[in-house]
């Protein structure tokens, strides 16, 4: 059975949404993630279907973290004088 979930994201998350949708599909090939204006439509007929909300929240989180991590690494390198 296909499970669908539409999640509206906050304006501050809009800049991470495209990346999050892309990586959702990479990490969970059975999940379809289609972006609309201020929301994403997630679909899956695999066991992942039962945790679509968590998958989307994680994807948004990780997209943001990847960018923060890059900035943090620059700080660390700066601290180490490199």
């Amino acid at each position, binding site marked *: 059975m296909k499970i669908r979930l539409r999640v509206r994201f906050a304006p501050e998350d809009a800049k991470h949404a495209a990346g999050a949708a892309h990586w959702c599909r*990479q990490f969970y090939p059975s999940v379809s993630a289609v972006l609309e204006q201020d929301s994403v439509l997630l679909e899956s007929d695999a066991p992942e279907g039962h*945790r679509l909300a968590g998958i989307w*929240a994680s994807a948004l*989180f990780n997209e943001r973290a990847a960018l923060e991590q890059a900035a943090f690494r620059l700080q660390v390198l700066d601290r180490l004088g490199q």
Partner: protein
Amino acid sequence: MTALPLRCRPAADDGLLFVNDSGSFFRGDPEFASRLLSGRLEQADEAFLADRGHLVDEADALSFDAHTFNVAERIGRAGTLDYLILVPTLRCNLACTYCQVSRVAEQARGFDWSDAHLAAVLELIDTLSADQVKIEFQGGEPTLRPDLIRAVIERCERFSARQFVICTNLQELSPEILQLFDRSDLFISTSLDGDPGTHERNRTKGRGSKFFANLDLLLSRYGAEKISALPTVDPSSPPEIDALIDAFRSRGLTKIFLRPINFQGFARKRHSHSREQDGAWRSYYERFVRRLVELNWANQDTVLEESYLSICLGRVFRPGRDRHVDLRNPNPAGVDYLVVDYDGSLYPTDEARMLTRSGVIDLKLGTVGSDWKGETWRMLNSHSTNQFDPACSRCAYQPYCGRDLVDDLSRYGRVDMARTSTEFCRKHQWLFDLIFELVYDKDAAVQHSLRRWLRLDCEAALGEAAP
């Protein structure tokens, strides 16, 4: 306060796992995630995060440095060369269909070290600057050349700590071999695919009784501590779980490294399905682990464990465990360990020698006695980390995971596959999901096994949850 980067992974239920760059983790519910994402943390959230070092005051240099230190602890530091895998002969007295190294017949000529190869190996040992050494004898069947094994061992007397491992099929046990095995610094590694019927079908084809008699003789002579046995499982027809466990448990062998056929050597052709593992294998593996949990709970005097799960568990809870060379990050090639093949060729890993022998790609680094840090060495080492991979940067399990270039080359013929498309990545995402499911499982039997596998005496919870 500055929130340090956290990555996230959805759990099987509604919960989410949060992991920072140093591998420190906790669980939270979707409402907590929403507050964290939007920056609208409650006082209890802030206190929880600050207490665990996830929120740091910009003026607090000590906390910032502590986090940096913890991140650095997660980055493997390969030491000096102190681990050699030596292949004194490629000849073998068995003909297993899934032989990973494409061994040659026992009577074949030209597949043993020459005198010059032995001299160069001994010279290499003389140049090692470490004061400890580990040497693993692989094959072929290394016990076909006990003279070469003895020469190497004698050359290692100067090291303050020595460990030798002979990987053998235990078909023949001559007095000469037994004399070698009697050494307290020598360990025996063999293959045990399950009950005699399974083992014989896979390997010995009529000579099974000799293998089991030899294995049992060694166990009675030395005890189980000196001997490790590993099963190779054909995922398309895995043995019955209890029968496999009993083959080990009945002999006092408590560590079982549940390995599917390695996509190497003869197995590439004869077991081509072994390139990717499917849901059926994962399900078998999980049932196997859960059966171990049940048995450990029922009999608390014995701790049965699946070795790779314990390695992965160690990667979560014990940063700095970087000597398992199939799972570490970075995973440098030809730095702290090296393989010397039967013809004196040097390889970065045992699998690299198998791939070269299969004609897939030439990963030979050089020849023993010459400098091996050439172009192949440099190319391998420039891709040895998962730190900057775009997929790994978005994966909560990156601090625990690793990089295995040779595995990617073996399965896909390239190292630049999208990480999430590789068997290595899928397998480890699944394995770490299983580990965290166990960590947050309230079942006393599960917690008992986890603590024994981690060698912990404490009763504290292994995983925390945000408010």
